[in-house]
């Protein structure tokens, strides 16, 4: 253990004594408790999961390019869509947000030497990694991987309808990753409450850190419910309880309540970190402070508050939920999201916009998320939902949303990757990656909206020979191929740019504290800290003539 002093005590001339002499190589990876190394491990694992989940999606789209392509069997198709959803939601989107980037950035953005509980943080990573292995190992069992959809609805997920090890491995994997998420939530909350640098008041924290705090609280509210539900499901499958089975007096719909009580806050656990990333990227590349800083935080907190009361909008067609309550709550959540949209546009308004790859990805995020959000408002209305429930309209809606998150994730990697590795990525390849990803996303989802309105149900491996359906499915598959090309371009870019373009400490003229330290940051993050007087301390230090005063008014009197 090292007793850590505030960076003010560490002077430039005696860096030597802060140098870290720990194990190296594989032993370093196994024993590290440094949030930066753990963040990097999370990043690499999560991007690998994105690639694996993406491969499943490409196979699904290839199968659907013809009415009965026969590329995979019906049973294999069920496993593929289940594992595509599970890998993307449980193993990529969440862990990438709160495990990878938040782990790396939150302590640095608030001027802390590490997370509050470094060993718990390391445990989170090991539970996540073993969770990934557990879930994917389902493919190597005789019955194949889980095949009841990523939502695992009862009674389809009971031992009669889904026997075999694949389903149990799915449950086990979610137990592991669930605990991993809970520990990360504890860590984030404690770090933000207790390890801020002097002068870093709550209302001076970067929006990304704010969003991660709210994400941490939401994780603590939602994940234990899922874990409890999974234990009940396991007991139903193996110990003869009848919690979710009608035969023994149980209630199958209870699983849906429990699952979505986790599942809808989970949507915001996934989305808020990416909202935060975009909220950091847009002002930097517009050369302006964040427009409506406090409004942004208020919107985040409102989304969190409402997110606990909207779960049953996934269950409108069960016929046993309170339609007006859930419809009203779901419609209300559009208001804070609208505030965020307004503020992102306000941050760009009359700014000096620099169209770097990270900025393009962020603008792509705003546009794509707007499409996903607006179609979400349609679905919040029960009469429309009755008509489109379980059709491709819903598939298209949430793929607009999650592909927006992928755009945000890529923006985050282009923006903060240089801080994590010390090297920039190639902008030319990055921009072509953006266009493939952005156009691919729209080509993927738009035909799916129409397919849904024409009545094509989701989770179908074959569909009737109908010229219109086939054409739109093929269009959608072309979109998936474009997204595949964009992912290949990203991998090519990482290999091509490897250690080629040194980034320096502050390549983008950034605002928050992470741009004040070196790239990559030293052990325990800072040799010195600037005076913190606004939400952009690094900018204030580098541009004393344009110091930001209280929220959004620059010192020269102009309303920035």
């Amino acid at each position, binding site marked *: 253990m090292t007793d850590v002093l505030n960076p003010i005590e560490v002077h430039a001339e005696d860096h030597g004594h802060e140098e870290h002499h*720990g194990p190296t190589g594989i032993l370093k990876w196994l024993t590290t408790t440094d949030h930066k190394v753990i963040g990097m491990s999370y990043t690499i694992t999560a991007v690998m999961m994105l690639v694996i989940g993406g491969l499943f999606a490409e196979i699904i789209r290839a199968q659907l390019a013809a009415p009965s392509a026969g590329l995979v069997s019906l049973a294999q198709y069920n496993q593929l869509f289940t594992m595509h959803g599970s890998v993307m939601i449980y193993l990529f989107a969440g862990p990438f947000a709160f495990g990878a980037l938040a782990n790396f950035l939150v302590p640095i953005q608030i001027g802390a030497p590490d997370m509050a509980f470094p060993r718990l943080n390391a445990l989170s990573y090991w539970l996540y990694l073993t969770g990934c292995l557990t879930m994917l190992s389902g493919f190597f069992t005789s019955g194949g991987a889980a095949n009841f959809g990523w939502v695992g609805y009862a009674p389809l997920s009971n031992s009669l309808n889904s026997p075999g090890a694949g389903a149990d491995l799915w449950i086990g994997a979610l137990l592991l990753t669930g605990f991993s998420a809970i520990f990360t939530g504890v860590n984030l909350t404690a770090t933000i409450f207790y390890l801020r640098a002097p002068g870093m008041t709550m209302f001076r924290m970067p929006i990304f850190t704010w969003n991660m705090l709210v994400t941490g609280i939401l994780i603590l509210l939602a994940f234990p419910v899922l874990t409890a539900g999974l234990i009940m499901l396991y007991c139903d499958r193996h110990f003869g309880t009848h919690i979710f089975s009608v035969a023994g007096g149980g209630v199958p719909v209870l699983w849906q309540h429990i699952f979505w009580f986790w599942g809808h806050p989970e949507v915001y656990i996934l989305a808020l970190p990416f909202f935060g990333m975009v909220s950091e990227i847009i002002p930097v590349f517009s050369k302006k402070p964040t427009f409506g800083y406090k409004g942004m935080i208020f919107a985040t907190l409102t989304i969190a508050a409402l997110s606990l009361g909207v779960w049953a909008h996934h269950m409108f067609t069960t016929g046993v939920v309170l339609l007006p309550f859930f419809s009203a709550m779901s419609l209300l959540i559009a208001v804070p999201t609208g505030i965020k949209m307004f503020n992102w546009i306000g941050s760009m308004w009359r700014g000096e916009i620099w169209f770097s790859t990270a900025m393009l990805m962020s603008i792509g995020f705003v546009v794509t998320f707007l499409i996903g959000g607006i179609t979400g408002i349609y679905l919040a209305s029960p009469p429309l939902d009755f008509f489109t429930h379980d059709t491709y309209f819903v598939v298209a809606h949430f793929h607009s949303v999650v592909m927006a998150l992928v755009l945000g994730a890529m923006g985050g990697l282009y923006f903060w990757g240089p801080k994590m590795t010390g090297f920039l990525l190639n902008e030319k390849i990055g921009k072509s990656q953006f266009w493939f990803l952005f156009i691919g996303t729209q080509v993927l989802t738009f035909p799916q909206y129409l397919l849904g309105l024409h009545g094509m149900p989701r989770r179908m491996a074959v569909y009737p020979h109908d010229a219109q359906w086939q054409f739109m499915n093929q269009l959608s598959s072309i979109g998936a191929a474009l997204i595949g090309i964009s992912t290949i371009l990203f991998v090519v870019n990482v290999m091509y740019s490897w250690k080629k373009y040194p980034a320096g400490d502050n390549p983008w003229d950034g605002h928050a504290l992470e741009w004040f330290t070196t790239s990559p940051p030293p052990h325990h993050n800072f040799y010195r800290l600037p005076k913190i007087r606004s939400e952009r301390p690094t900018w204030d230090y580098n541009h004393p003539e344009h110091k930001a005063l209280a929220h959004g008014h620059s010192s020269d009197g102009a309303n920035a």
Partner: protein
Amino acid sequence: MKVESKILLSLGLFFGIMCAVYWRWSVENAGGVMMLSGMLLCFLPGSYYYWWSRRMKERPEDNPNATQEEGAGFVGTFPGSSIWPFVLGMGAFFTVLALVFGIWLLLPGLFLGGWAVLGGSGEGRRGGKH
């Protein structure tokens, strides 16, 4: 500390109101119970922070005019590296595999888990490695 407690308390209050409305209006109990638990989960740490925020003197991180010098000194004790999270993670891994492949896997699972708990707490007390 005041802002922190206010966030949690207002979230809890909102969940409480939502829970009351939902409980009166709906015909099922699961959602109400879950929202009630959400409220309690916010009130517990929220009221603790509120209690403390009235008793402690202002921390440098809550003072908008604090200088870095005010935070000088001891921040905390952080481990440089530790093998125990990995051992505990492997213990959990084997325990979960025991749910799927057979009870015998509990043996390595619980052994590794117990070893990590002993090793980790020993490391915390002794000070461990840099």
